[in-house]
C-alpha cells in the first residue's frame, strides 16, 4: 500500500496543468467564475480545444482516438480540470452513444459517426425515457415499424437533456411486441433530429431553466442503416451504456472544488459578528461532508485500481452514483445555507451576459446557490434513480 504518485504520474499532472494554463479559454473561465450559464458554442469550443490536444475522448480505445490513459491518469485529469472549474463535458455523444457505436456498430457507422463526435461537430441527445416509462424503462412504447429499408417511428421521448441543441438523438425503440421478454423487442436506433416529423418542446425545470425537452416523433422515417447492431438487442447495448454513464457520475473532482469554494465562502460570510466557519454547527456539517467526500474519493480510487487489474466496472459503480449525488446535493444545500438571505432573490436575469456583475443583488453568485440547489435535486433521479441503484446493488452485489 502506498499513497504516493509515481514520477510519471506527477509529470503527467504537470503536463495537464501546463496545458490548462495555456489553453483553457479565457471567456469560459470568466463566465464560470461569474456564474453565467454557458451556451452551446462555449461547450463546443472547449471540447474542440480538448480534442486538438487528443484529450477529449478520454475513455475511448486508442484506435478510435482515445487516450489509452491509466485509471489514475484519468482521475488526475479530472482533478486538474475541476481545479480550474472547467465545464463538464457534454456526455451524450462522447461518453454515451460513441461506446455503443464502437462496440456494437458496423464499420460504416463507426466511419460515419465517430469522427464528428470526436470533433464535436455533431450534438447528440439521449432518447430513452418516455412519459410512461421512467424507472421501468423496458416498458417503453415508442414504436419503430419496419417498412422496407426504413423504419417508421411514432411516439414520445421525454426529459431529453439539451435536446434543443441536438443534431442527432439515440433512441431505444420498440421493434417488436411479439417476444417472450419485453426487453427482446427493443432496438437501438440513431435518428437525425432534422427528419420531418420530429418536434422538440421545452420542459421548464424547477428553477426556471430550460435544459430538458419532450421530443415527439410523428411518422418519422429512419433508414434501416441507422439501426445499431441487431434488431431486438437494444436493451443489452443500453445496459452497457448505463454502466458507462454511472462510472462518470460520482463527480468527486468537482465536489472537491466546490468544497474548497464553500470553505472560502463561509470564511467570508458573517454570522453573529464572526465568520460563519466559526459557527460550530456549520463547521461540523462541512467537516462531516469533507470526510464523506474523502471516503468517496478513495472508494472511487479503489474501484479504479480494481478496474486497472482487469475487473470490469460492475454494479459497484452504483455506489459511486448514490454517494456521489448525495455529496453533491449536500454541497448544494450548504452553499445555499452560506448565502443566507441572498439565497432567496429570484433574479435569473442577473446571470445574463450583459448584466454587470457589480450590479447584482448579493455578492458574486450568491443568489444562484438556490437555483443550483433546486435544479440539482435531479441528480438523484436521473441516470437510474438512487432507489433503482439500490435495487441493482441488492440484486447484483448482495444477491438478495
Amino acid at each position, binding site marked *: *500500500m502506498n499513497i504516493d504518485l509515481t514520477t510519471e504520474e506527477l509529470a503527467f499532472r504537470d503536463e495537464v496543468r501546463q496545458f490548462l494554463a495555456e489553453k483553457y479559454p479565457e471567456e469560459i473561465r470568466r463566465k464560470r467564475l461569474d456564474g453565467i450559464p454557458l451556451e452551446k458554442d462555449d461547450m463546443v469550443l472547449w471540447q474542440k480545444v480538448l480534442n486538438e490536444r487528443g484529450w477529449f475522448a478520454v475513455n475511448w480505445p486508442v484506435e478510435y482516438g482515445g487516450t489509452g490513459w491509466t485509471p489514475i491518469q484519468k482521475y488526475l485529469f479530472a482533478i486538474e480540470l475541476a481545479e480550474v472549474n472547467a465545464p463538464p463535458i457534454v456526455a451524450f455523444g462522447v461518453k454515451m452513444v460513441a461506446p455503443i457505436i464502437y462496440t456494437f456498430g458496423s464499420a460504416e457507422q463507426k466511419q460515419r459517426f465517430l469522427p464528428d463526435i470526436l470533433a464535436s461537430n455533431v450534438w447528440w441527445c439521449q432518447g430513452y425515457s418516455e412519459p410512461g416509462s421512467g424507472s421501468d424503462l423496458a416498458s417503453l412504447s415508442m414504436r419503430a415499424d419496419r417498412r422496407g429499408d426504413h423504419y417508421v417511428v411514432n411516439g414520445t421521448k421525454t426529459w431529453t437533456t439539451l435536446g434543443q441543441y441536438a443534431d442527432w438523438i439515440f433512441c431505444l425503440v420498440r421493434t417488436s411486441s411479439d417476444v417472450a421478454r419485453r426487453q427482446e423487442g427493443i432496438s437501438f436506433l440513431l435518428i437525425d433530429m432534422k427528419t420531418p416529423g420530429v418536434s422538440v418542446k421545452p420542459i421548464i425545470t424547477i428553477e426556471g431553466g430550460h435544459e430538458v425537452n419532450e421530443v415527439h416523433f410523428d411518422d418519422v422515417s429512419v433508414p434501416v442503416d441507422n439501426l445499431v447492431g441487431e434488431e431486438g438487442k437494444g436493451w443489452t447495448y443500453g445496459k452497457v451504456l448505463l454502466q458507462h454513464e454511472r462510472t462518470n457520475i460520482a463527480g468527486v473532482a468537482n465536489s472537491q472544488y466546490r468544497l474548497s469554494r464553500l470553505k472560502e465562502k463561509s470564511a467570508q460570510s458573517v454570522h453573529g459578528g464572526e465568520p460563519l466557519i466559526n459557527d460550530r454547527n456549520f463547521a*461540523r456539517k462541512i467537516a462531516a461532508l*469533507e470526510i464523506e467526500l474523502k471516503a468517496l474519493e*478513495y472508494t472511487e480510487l479503489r474501484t479504479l*485500481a480494481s478496474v486497472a487489474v482487469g475487473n470490469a466496472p460492475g454494479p459497484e459503480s452504483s455506489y459511486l452514483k448514490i454517494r456521489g449525488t448525495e455529496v453533491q446535493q449536500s454541497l448544494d444545500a450548504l452553499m445555499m445555507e452560506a448565502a443566507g438571505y441572498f439565497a432567496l432573490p429570484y433574479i435569473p436575469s442577473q446571470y445574463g451576459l450583459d448584466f454587470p456583475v457589480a450590479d447584482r443583488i448579493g455578492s458574486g453568485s450568491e443568489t444562484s446557490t438556490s437555483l443550483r440547489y433546486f435544479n440539482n435535486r435531479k441528480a438523484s433521479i436521473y441516470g437510474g434513480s438512487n432507489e433503482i441503484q439500490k435495487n441493482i*446493488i441488492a440484486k447484483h452485489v*448482495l444477491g*438478495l
Partner: protein
Amino acid sequence: MDFSLSEEQSMLADSVAKFIDADYDFESRQQFASDKNGYSEAMWRTFAELGWTAVPFSEPDGGLDGGPIELMLMMEQFGRGLVVEPYLANIVLAGGTLRRNANDAQRTKWLQPLIEGELQSSLAFAEPQSRFEITDVATSARKDGDGYLLNGNKSFVLHGENAGMIVIPARTSGNQRDEHGITLFTMPGDADGLTRRGYATVDGLRAAELSLDNVRLPADCVLGEEGEGFPTLSSVIDEATLAVAAEAMGIMQKMHDKTVEYTKSRVQFGVPISSFQALQHRMVDTLMLCEQSRSLLYWCVMLVNAGDPQARKAISALKYQVGTAGIKVAQEAVQLHGGMGVTWDLDIAHYFKRMTAIDLMFGNADHHLDRFISTAA
C-alpha cells in the same frame, strides 16, 4: 497510488484470518471471555508462538518490524473474530509506549517479556474527570529522594487488574490540562500503595479503576524525559485509535455479511425476508457504509505509513467515520435479526456491544469531528 499488499502482508492477513476461522469461533470466544482474567492465557501463548506479539516491534528488539499496515490487517481480523485477548492494551498501548521511549534497561526488563508473551501490561490513559482529553492528568508525581511519589486515580485501565506493569502518565509539573509536565512511569502491578478494582466491560473485556496512594517509584521507572511524556502518549493513542478503527472495520463487515446471509434464510410471510425491498435498501446502505469506511481506513493507514503531516487529521476523520457508520451498521444488523438480534446467545449482540465500546474508545465520533476541524491539515 497502490492499494495492494506486499507478499508478507498478505501472508500475515491470511494467516490471522485462517486462525480466526479455524480456532476462534464464537463459542470459544465466549469461553475465553469467561476465564478468570477475561481471556485465554493459552491463546495468548499461541499468539506469541505465532509471532503476533512481535509484529510491531523492531528487529533489534526481537520484533518483526511491522508498521501501521500490519497493525491494521491484524486488528481487522481480530475484530472479525471478536478477539478478547489484550492485544490492544498490551501490545499497542503499553508496547507502543515502551517501543517509543524505553531505554536499554527498560527494554530488557519490560519489552522483552512482553514480546515473548510473558508479560501483560497496560497504559492508564484516562482519569475519572478526563473523559477523552489525554492531557487532563491530575495524578501527581512528586520528587521524593531519588524517586517519585505518585498520587491520584486512573480510570478504565484496560486489563488493568492482572497487568504486571502499567504505564502511568503523571504530572511532574504544569497545570492539570497542560501538555507539558506529563511524565510517563512504568509502575509494577504489585506496587505498594496501588489499589485496583477490576471489572468486566459490556463488550466482554476487562478494565480497572486504579487508585495510587503514595506509590513510590524509583527514578529508573521514568520512560523518556521527565515532563515530556505527552508527545509519546499522543502518538500511542493515535496509533491505538487506528487500531480500534481497523477492528471496527472487521466488526462492521462481519455484521453486514451475517445480516445479508440471515435475511436470505429467515422465512416470514412465506418468503425469505431478504425479498422485502424495505430491508434490501437498508442492507445496501450498510454495505455502502462499510465500503466508505474501508476507503477511509486505507487512506488513513497509507498516510500514517508515509509519516504524512495530514495523518493526525486523517485519524480523526477515520474515527468519526467508523463511529458513525459502525454504530449504524450494528444497529441495523440487530434490527434485521429481529428478536434473535437481542439475545445473549447470538454473536450479533456481542459484535454490537464491542462496536459500541469502540465508538467511545479514545474519543467518540463527536470528539473526533471537532478534532478534525481544529487540526491543521
